[in-house]
């Protein structure tokens, strides 16, 4: 889109939702910009679907307000909101043909017949369903049903399209393909997409920004890279990708670095001091497996963090090799290395004594 887009197109303020005693959504504040492809990521029962249903108008928040494009929609019922939703089950009307399913929204808006036909043609072309328009839903494959659901939700040109686990029901190959198609459609139409998903990989590839939710609360909002490289909490670090963690205590602070004494690492680990920590503070050092190097000889760079270990287990994945390394403390960490050299021989074997090392910049400091 362009620079004039509204950064607070969707404005969620202090929204909570209680079901009896259960807090499904806990005091959420969130802004979503116009034209964004925004993902809400979390495990099952984290409140992400409830939040989506609040945006759609199926649930009324117990407290808080929701604004869309400057209009407070908190008390506006679902059928009067400029928002459409694609359901996880797709919710295709089984007693209507593909065409009738897609036209349903316009028919309810009393749009003229000729107009409806034109729009239906257009959107059917967009999702490439031309050959199936007269079919009944039960004759469609999963991928085709997904397209019908998408077309039906898009035809009213909503200001916001809500997608509840849009790809969860598709097999892996189709999912990857559909992912890019969704992104293309979103780009083409410029509609703001809000996607709910439990699949971190999906969220990473699809989204301009991600919000991570747990137990009804919003833990972190940011671009995929920020969320991955700079997680603010242990939950986010753990949920997105895999990560190795070392609990410890700050032992010394110099100009740039902090030294963290971690028992499981068998000594001090170095990290950049981004949180203005003092000696004695309890922190957690986290490192992504791909940021760790593995070598037979001790690494030469003195700046690097170096720990000795033995290879417990290794797995060859083609592009990557995964190592489970047991440190001297007994802690097992995960290391992944890209297989840059074409070779049938393995360089490092089971039970081999090796060194693992990483740059201080790769150490993520998590403050509990």
């Amino acid at each position: 889109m362009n620079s004039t887009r509204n950064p607070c197109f969707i404005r969620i303020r202090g929204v909570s939702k209680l079901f009896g005693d259960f807090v499904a959504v806990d005091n959420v504040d969130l802004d979503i910009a116009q034209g964004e492809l925004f993902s809400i990521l979390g495990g099952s029962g984290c409140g992400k679907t409830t939040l989506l249903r609040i945006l759609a108008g199926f649930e009324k928040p117990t407290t808080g307000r929701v604004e869309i494009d400057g209009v407070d929609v908190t008390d506006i019922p679902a059928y009067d909101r400029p928002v459409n939703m694609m359901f996880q089950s797709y919710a295709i009307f089984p007693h209507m043909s593909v065409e009738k399913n897609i036209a349903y929204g316009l028919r309810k808006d009393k749009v003229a017949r000729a107009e409806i036909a034109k729009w239906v043609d257009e959107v059917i072309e967009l999702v490439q369903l031309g050959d199936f328009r007269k079919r009944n839903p039960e004759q469609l494959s999963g991928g085709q049903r997904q397209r019908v659901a998408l077309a039906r939700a898009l035809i009213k040109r909503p200001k916001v399209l809500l997608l509840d686990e849009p790809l969860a029901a598709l097999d892996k190959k189709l999912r990857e393909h559909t992912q890019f198609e969704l992104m293309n459609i979103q780009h083409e139409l410029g509609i703001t997409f809000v996607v709910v998903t439990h699949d971190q990989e999906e969220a990473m590839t699809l989204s301009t920004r991600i919000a991570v939710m747990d137990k009804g609360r919003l833990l972190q909002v940011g671009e995929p890279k920020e969320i991955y490289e700079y997680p603010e909490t242990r939950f986010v670090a753990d949920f997105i990708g895999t990560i190795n963690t070392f609990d410890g205590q700050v032992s010394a602070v110099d100009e740039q670095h902090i030294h963290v004494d971690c028992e499981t690492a068998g000594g001090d680990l170095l990290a950049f001091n981004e949180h203005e920590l003092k000696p004695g503070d309890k922190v957690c050092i986290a490192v992504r497996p791909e940021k760790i190097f593995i070598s037979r000889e001790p690494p030469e760079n003195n700046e690097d963090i170096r720990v000795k270990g033995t290879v417990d287990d290794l797995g060859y994945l083609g592009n990557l090799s995964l190592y489970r390394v047991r440190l001297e403390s007994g802690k097992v960490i995960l290391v992944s290395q890209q297989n840059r050299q074409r070779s049938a021989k393995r360089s490092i074997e089971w039970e081999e004594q090796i060194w693992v090392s990483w740059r201080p910049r790769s150490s993520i400091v998590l403050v509990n």
Partner: protein
Amino acid sequence: MASLIQKDRLWWHITVLVPYLWLLLFFLLPFGIILKISLAEPILAQPPFSPTFDDTGTLSITADNFAFLFSDKLYALTYLKSVIMAAAATICCLLLGFPIAYGIARSQPRTRSLLLLLIVLPFWISFLLRVYAWMGLLGNYGVINNFLMWLGITEQPMQILYTDFAIFLGLTYSYLPFMILPLYATLERMDLDLVDAAMDLGASRTTAFWDITWPLARAGVIAGCMLVFIPAMGEYVIPFLLGGPDALLIGRVLFDEFYVNRDWPLASAVAIMLLLLLVVPIVILQKNQARDAEQAT
């Protein structure tokens, strides 16, 4: 291998044969007998109808009984009244049963089984006893009238028992579960997201009901209506116990012709007409459904 397939085919034939045999023995055969009797003349003998073939072996049948059914207005009126009564009870069962079934289908799984149990609970008591209980409720000095008089709404007891209204009440009460259960079965299977989706696309709650819930519940509605209407048409006990002496419904007429007048041929003709009256609309309905299903594919 070949023998295995043959064995399979044999079993297949046997399993298919059983229901056919059942229908033949307990439906077609009795129907043939009734048809035969309906074409005979009543005589004072044992059995009380003339044989199909007389002494000389020639066929002796008559359509007099059917002609009589059409000539005497009483029978037409009785059929009509039975249809009206059964239809009224069916509609009332549908109006009551739909919200009940909907409520049960949308309730928490734990309360759901309890509610279903409550629906079938009356079946644990004899049908006859339950109809008798209504007599106690509806009588001139029954529970309802006593309550109304105690409230001071009426001075004199109202005549409820032995009226058509009592029959209607009895039919509705007795057959309500047969409406609720098939409706529940279809509504319970329905994806709740469908209604949400309709509302999301601009349908109000009422519109969503008529666009989505109602058409998808149609199979249950039809099954429920047939399960109520058909037995209600031929109901004998309820009109006999709760209706007035002039409450001539088809079941009652049938009984009277058989046991009071001992006119078996006429009674058989009544029964055949009743069957036709019920079967013809069902066949038409099924043809329609088959055509719909064909169009759908």
